[in-house]
Every structure is written in C-alpha cells, then in structure tokens.
C-alpha cells in the first residue's frame, strides 16, 4: 500500500517471529511504557514489544527460541510483575461492539446528509426541487438502513421466530414501514417523506447499543487482566525418564506428573513418590493445608506447597474434580439466562400497545373516510413518534455512566443486566475464607520474639512455600530482619522445617496441641515458643454489613471451612452461618433461599464458590479470587476493603431510579406526542424535533449518575 511496506519486509526476513501477550498490571505512567518497550526491545531475540496501556498488556513479537518464561523474567527484571496471557475466556466476541460502531458511523453519516436535504424541504422547497431531494434522501437512506438496521432486524427476526417480542420488533416494523411509505411518497411526488426520521431513529438506538457493548468490553478487559494462569499443564515423565511440558488437554490417565513445590495440579491423581502438603483453599475453602504422601489422592486445582512429588494421573480433563465444579456451575448458571432485562420487560407491554395504537389510528381514519394513503401516513407517524428511541437509550446511558463511576472506585460490573439484578438483591450470602478474610494468614504478636528468634525464624520460613512460612517470612522480612545463617534445612511435609544453626538444632514445626487457629512452634535448642497466625478479616467488614443492613439486606455466612473456624467469625459479627458446605451444598442453600422468594447476592472467591456464584441472583468476587470465581461473578471489586460491595448495591439502586425516571419521561413525552400523531398533526419536522429532544433529555438525566459513587 505505502512506501513503508517493502522496508518492513526487508527487516523481518530472518526468522518468522511468534507473538505472545503478557498482562502487566503495575503500569502506571508514560515512563513505564517507555521502560518496558525499550527494555524488551533490547533483549536478544525480541523483534518488537508494544504496550497497550488501556488494557495493561504487552504484546511481544519474538523468535521461537526465546521461551515465554524468558520474557517473563525479562519483564520482571525491568521491575514489573507480569503474567502470561492465555486465550481470554471472557472475550468471546470482541468484534460485536466494533460492528455496532461501524453501523453507528454509517447511520450518523446518513442522518447528517438526509437532514441537510430535509431542512431545505421543511423550509419550503417545493415542486421539482422537493422531489429531487426526496429521491436523493431515498438514495442515501436505503443502503444506510439496510446496513445499520441489521442488528435490529436480526434480533427482531430471532424473537419472532421464538414467538416472543422484544424492543427490536416495534423498531424494525416502524423503520421498515416508514421507509416503504416514504418511498411510495417519493415515487408519487407526495409532500411527506420520513427518511430522516427512520435513519435518525437507528442512529440514536445504535448509540445506546454501542454504549452497552463498550461497558461490557471494558469490564471484561479489566477482569481478564486480573486472571492468573491456572495450571494449564504439567511436566510429564516420558518413557525414557526425561520430562516434558504437556498441555492439560493432552494429559491422560496413567501418565506420571512431576509437580514442583508451588505449582498447581493440572489433573487428579495419586501421589507416587514424595510427601507434601497441599493448599486446598481454592477447592474447598479450608484454610489449613493438608498433607498427602504416597497412596493419597491429590486433586486438580490444589497447589503443592512443600516439596516436589510425582503424581500418577487417575482422572484428567473433563473428569477431574475441577471439571465437576465447572459442570455444576454450568447447570447453576442456566436459570440466570432466563432473566429478562428491564428494557425488554417494558417492551413486552410497550410493543403491543404501540402496534394496536397505530392500527387503531389506521382503522379510525379509514372509517373517517380519508383514504388508504392518508390513513397509512398517520399510522406511520404514530409508529415513528412512539418508537422507543428514548427507551432504547434510557437504560444503557444510565447503566454506562453508573458502571464508569463504579469502575473509578474499583468495582468492575460485567454488564447492564448485572446492575439491574444487583439493585434487586435483598439477601447477602458471604463465603468466609478469602472473602470476609484476606485468604492468607498473618502472624500475630511477633514482638514477643527476641531478635535472635526472629532471624532464625526468617531463615527457616524462607525455605518453604507453606502458607504459614510464607506469611512469617513476609512479616519478618517486612520488619527488616536479617535471616540467620541456618544450614541443612529439611522440610517434612505435615510436620515442618528443621535445620542447624551453628551447633544448635532449630525447627519450625506444628504446635503440640492442635487448635482451631493456625499456629507454629519455633524451637531453638531446648527453648520453644508458639506463634499464632490469623487469617485477618478484610477491612471494613462491619461497616459493609452495617451498610447492607441499612439498604435492607440481611447477610449470612456459607463456608466450606470447618465449623469452629467459621463460628468464630460469625459470632464476631452476629451473623447466622453454615459451615463445611461443599459446592453442591452451597448451590442448594442458594436455591432454597431463592425458593423463599429472596434475591440472593452471593459474595465469594474460591473455585468451590463458582457454582454458587453462578446460581445466585447476582454475585460479586474480590480481585484476589480464583479465575473461576471471577468469571462466574457479575462484578469484581479490586480493593482489599469490602465496602465497594455496599457501594455497588447503592449505585445500582440509584441507577434503577434514574432508569425509571427516564421511563417516566419517555411515557410523558408519548402522552403529549401520541394525541398529536393520532390527530394527524405530526409532520416529519415535528417527529424529528420530538425524537432528538426526548433522547437528549434522557441522556442528560443519566449523566447525573457521574457522581453517584461519591
């Protein structure tokens, strides 16, 4: 196309490059863009790196020899945390909004040009000039309507095929009738052509659809940037004894996987060699890790914490325990797709009313004896004037503004229907681990330790990935403690760590008596000290519960953790609770509540909450949640605090108030305009003014939500 093309080809002749994408949530400014792009371009083997700042992503084009792990390390060396982006499961059809935007641009072009011609007709052009302008309008309008009207015609045809009606049915009938009649008018040299009205209608309605689509895309991009890469494969031991990385989909029962400490399991299996502890919190909600040795079952979705193990795969792919949860989630989510959005609910009454009104106008004027042509003209005027222009804009405009305001406060709403359902919630069900609590333990009363004890504890804790060790190392490292020189550290799964510090034996082990709380015992020579750890509550739990109560929403706890651990939290806030619930139990509880007519707001994070999140009327998940949790939830809040939950409900309710006001405005406008149309007084000029006027008022009212989240 341009002169630059051959140059580009010459530069990339060497080896074909492959592309990979990474999410870098830590990008904040222009400096970060420059640093990452220049830093990566300097890495040998990288052909080009391009940052997408809006999506917080980097696309890297590199030679196949350079692995993705190398690039991840390169980005980390530049001082940014990065994760490899796999295919985004949320962005199924990113092209939908683009198509709508194209249709909007075409409709905008048509509206402007037809309006240009119409204005001169309205201001008195007559005779040949008027006919010429009508023909020109028709020439522009017909291709524009054929192109821009497709989304509406397709949706209306779909609805009619299933013998339902939605907003798009009256729109399509109105537009098609108006166009047909205007063509007839033009051919017979009549005075009134409604091409401008029909195209303008499409323009306003498409604006509403584009807003709706943009909101959905923006939230999905935001959430997919938070998604982690969850064990998409494993190192499989080959027949010749070597190991090779195998994709999770290619793993079959009978294979042996080598799982390093800190890695997630990609398939269910039985431990063959090694002994390690497993973090089950994402799968069951249990906060205490469990130990497994040879012969014990290890499940996909859990994380191996302490030492490398070999696992003989028993169930892979669609048979794993995770896949069971996914299936449960699919089933649970099905009833939700039957939710009818408020605009379509309104259309159920609106469409028949409009159609009978237009029909009545036609029959009435026929009986009055004005002739088929005149009666049809009035009927079309009624259809155009009542077309749900403001209605189609009323809902998306308010929802987009509200979602934008919430996004600034760290709440990502997936779509407009989520806001509608959030406003209806009247009962909250919270998970405990990871939702009411942070999901990771922190040591308490570290001050009781002497400086020596601290440095020995840090040296031991650093060597392990057990949550207790990680928490201890994090807390002590944060205090600036220097680790002691401990040698020969050995980790025994289920027992703890021991090592040698000079001539003294030191150990970090399980406390002697099992308690409900997490604890560890530090032994240096003969002296021992017990350290308690707690999974701290998220900030503002009480404030959030109070705010929900104020909104008329009762809360309860539904956790997979042991009753003792749940009871402690529940008593602190005076909430009813259920403990030890498996994913299916959670769904059952939610369905029981729904059976009592409650609209349940589920707040959860883990894999085990997935089905419940999908089954609830509406659901929210914290940004620290599992991928499954974030995908199943209607909204994700990225802060540590829980206050955004109450804020989101409050904003959702205000949004619905604005939407109802907008409906009232639209109805009020119809009350004035419809009698005029019925009386045959509406000319194309009046229709155009009424239509744009009512749309502007509705959008203006929606803009009041900009400050809703304050």
């Amino acid at each position: 196309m341009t002169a630059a093309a051959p140059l580009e080809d010459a530069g990339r002749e060497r080896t074909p490059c492959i592309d990979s994408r990474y999410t870098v949530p830590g990008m904040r400014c222009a400096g970060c863009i420059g640093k990452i792009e220049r830093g990566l371009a300097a890495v040998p083997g990288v052909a080009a790196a391009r940052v997408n700042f809006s999506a917080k992503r980097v696309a890297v084009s590199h030679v196949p020899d350079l692995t993705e792990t190398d690039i991840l390390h390169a980005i980390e060396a530049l001082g940014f945390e990065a994760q490899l982006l796999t295919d985004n499961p949320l962005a199924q059809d990113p092209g939908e909004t683009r198509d709508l935007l194209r249709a909007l641009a075409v409709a905008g072009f048509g509206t402007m040009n037809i309006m240009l011609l119409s204005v001169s007709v309205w201001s008195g052009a007559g005779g040949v000039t008027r006919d010429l302008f009508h023909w020109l309008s028709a020439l522009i309008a017909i291709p524009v309507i054929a192109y821009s009207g497709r989304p509406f015609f397709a949706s209306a045809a779909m609805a009619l095929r299933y013998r339902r009606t939605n907003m798009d049915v009256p729109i399509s009938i109105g537009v098609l009738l108006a166009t047909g009649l205007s063509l007839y008018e033009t051919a017979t040299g009549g005075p009134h052509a409604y091409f401008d009205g029909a195209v303008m209608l499409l323009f306003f309605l498409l604006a509403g659809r584009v807003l709706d689509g943009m909101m959905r895309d923006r939230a999905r991009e935001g959430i997919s940037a938070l998604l982690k890469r969850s064990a998409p494969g494993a190192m499989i031991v080959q027949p010749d004894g070597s190991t090779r990385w195998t994709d999770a989909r290619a793993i079959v029962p009978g294979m042996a996987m080598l799982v390093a400490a800190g890695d997630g399991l990609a398939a269910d299996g039985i431990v063959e060699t090694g002994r390690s502890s497993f973090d089950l919190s994402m799968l069951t909600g249990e906060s205490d890790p469990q130990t497994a040795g040879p012969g014990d079952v290890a499940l996909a979705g859990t994380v191996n914490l302490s030492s490398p193990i070999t696992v003989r795969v028993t169930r892979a792919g669609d048979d794993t325990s995770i896949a069971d949860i996914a299936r449960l989630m699919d089933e649970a989510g099905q009833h939700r797709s039957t939710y009818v959005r408020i605009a379509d609910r309104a259309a159920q009454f609106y469409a028949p009313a409009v159609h009978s009104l237009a029909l009545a106008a036609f029959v009435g004027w026929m009986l009055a004896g004005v002739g088929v042509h005149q009666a049809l003209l009035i009927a079309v005027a009624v259809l155009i004037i009542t077309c749900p222009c403001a209605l189609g804009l009323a809902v998306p405009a308010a929802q987009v503004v509200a979602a934008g305001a919430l996004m600034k406060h760290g709440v990502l709403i997936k779509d407009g229907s989520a806001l509608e359902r959030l406003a209806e919630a009247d009962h909250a069900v919270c998970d405990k681990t990871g939702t009411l609590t942070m999901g990771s333990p922190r040591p308490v009363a570290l001050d009781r330790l002497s400086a020596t004890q601290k440095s020995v504890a840090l040296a031991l804790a650093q060597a392990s990935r057990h949550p207790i060790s990680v928490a201890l190392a994090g807390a002590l490292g944060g205090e600036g403690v220097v680790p002691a020189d401990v040698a020969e550290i050995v980790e025994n799964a289920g027992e703890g760590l021991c090592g040698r510090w000079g001539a003294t034996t030191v150990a970090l082990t399980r406390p002697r008596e099992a308690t409900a709380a997490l604890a560890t015992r530090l032994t240096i020579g003969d002296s021992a000290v017990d350290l308690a750890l707690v999974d701290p509550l998220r900030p503002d739990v009480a404030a959030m519960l109070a705010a929900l109560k104020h909104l008329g929403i009762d809360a309860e706890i539904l956790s997979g953790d042991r009753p003792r651990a749940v009871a402690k939290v529940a008593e602190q806030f005076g909430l009813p609770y259920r403990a030890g619930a498996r994913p299916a139990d959670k769904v059952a509880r939610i369905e029981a509540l729904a059976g009592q007519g409650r609209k349940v707001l589920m707040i959860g994070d883990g894999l085990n909450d997935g089905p419940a999140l999908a089954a609830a009327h509406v659901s929210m998940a914290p940004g620290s949640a599992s991928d499954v949790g974030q995908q199943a939830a209607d909204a994700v809040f990225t802060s540590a605090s829980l206050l955004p939950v109450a804020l989101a409900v409050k904003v959702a309710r205000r949004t619905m108030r604005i939407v109802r006001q907008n409906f009232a405005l639209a109805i009020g406008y119809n009350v004035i305009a419809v009698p005029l149309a019925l009386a045959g007084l509406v000319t194309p000029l009046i229709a155009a003014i009424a239509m744009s006027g009512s749309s502007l008022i509705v959008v203006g009212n929606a803009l009041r939500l900009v400050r809703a989240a304050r």
Partner: protein
Amino acid sequence: MSGLALLIPVALGMGLAGLAAFFWAMRSGQFEDPEGSAQRILIDDDDDGDEKG
C-alpha cells in the same frame, strides 16, 4: 439550481470522506489504546527506539 448540482455532491463527498476516515482509523487500531496514546506523548524518545520513524 445549477449550484445544487455542485454543492450536493460536495456535501456527500465530504461526508463519505469522513466516514472512510473513521473506518480507516478503526481498522488501523487507532482506538485500541486511547489511554496509552495520551501517555505516549510524554515519553521523550530521543533515540527513536521502537517506532519505525
């Protein structure tokens, strides 16, 4: 009337040019990263590293 024969094609042509420009901008990814474009102007790119310039 003869003025119209000139003005109407001009008006239509300008509208079509605008539409074509918008489509071209969409195809060439001008709207992919609006925040990034706003930030990039602040990078002082003396060495002209990654851009093809």
